[in-house]
């Protein structure tokens, strides 16, 4: 079984005083999201644990589906998943994605013609998610 990812992608810079500075990056876009203060610890692993727990993880969104740690820009807050697992959907769709009918007025949750859910939030297991 694949082990769950513990931190976002990172680079470590060691300074002359024995401290380490960690730079954490978004797992999708590679955006630099956090640069930690210099951290003193016996090993790099111990320093990483402190850096991640005290500073790094607060700057990221964790995708429960794929385990990636991503920046806010790469996170779909509506679905609670990263954008690789759930791309942004039109929150106020003008057409039904399944039958193509034009939606009038306030956007309903489901298509009035075919019954398809209009926002699938990356959870549509198969074609035609009908409620």
């Amino acid at each position: 079984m694949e082990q769950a990812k513990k931190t976002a992608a990172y680079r470590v810079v060691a300074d002359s005083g024995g401290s380490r500075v960690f730079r954490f990056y978004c797992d999708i876009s590679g955006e630099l999201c956090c640069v930690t203060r210099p951290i003193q610890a016996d090993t790099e692993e111990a320093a990483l644990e402190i850096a991640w727990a005290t500073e790094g993880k607060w700057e990221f969104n964790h995708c429960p589906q794929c385990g990636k740690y991503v920046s806010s820009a790469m996170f779909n807050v509506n679905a609670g998943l990263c954008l690789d697992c759930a791309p942004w959907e039109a929150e106020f769709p003008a057409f039904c994605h399944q039958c193509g009918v034009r939606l009038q007025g306030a956007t309903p949750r489901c298509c009035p013609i075919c019954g398809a859910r209009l926002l699938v939030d990356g959870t549509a297991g198969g074609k035609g998610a009908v409620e």
Partner: protein
Amino acid sequence: MSEYDLRTKKALRQVTLLEYGFGPETMKLRKICPECGRANGAQDTHCTDCGAALPSRTLYDFYLSRHRCCPGCGVAVTSIAEYCPECGARLPKAGVTQREGAAV
């Protein structure tokens, strides 16, 4: 923020997402430095942190390159969509998803 007409629910939602750093509008305003990973403005040509040349494409272009898109209006669509929810265009069959590596 003045370009938004906040009288509509859609525009208000866009501004809220932008304020918290989420959503397509945020991605359109960002470029990621391929050298140091710093987020720069979409109008920048060089990284404000390390001076490296920035790519011409924004974070939104990078996002689109990883998803199935509508050939009509260009928005990303889900893999199950048969019609574009924005413009109503009939979409080609799913499964032609272009995936690229991370920007850095």
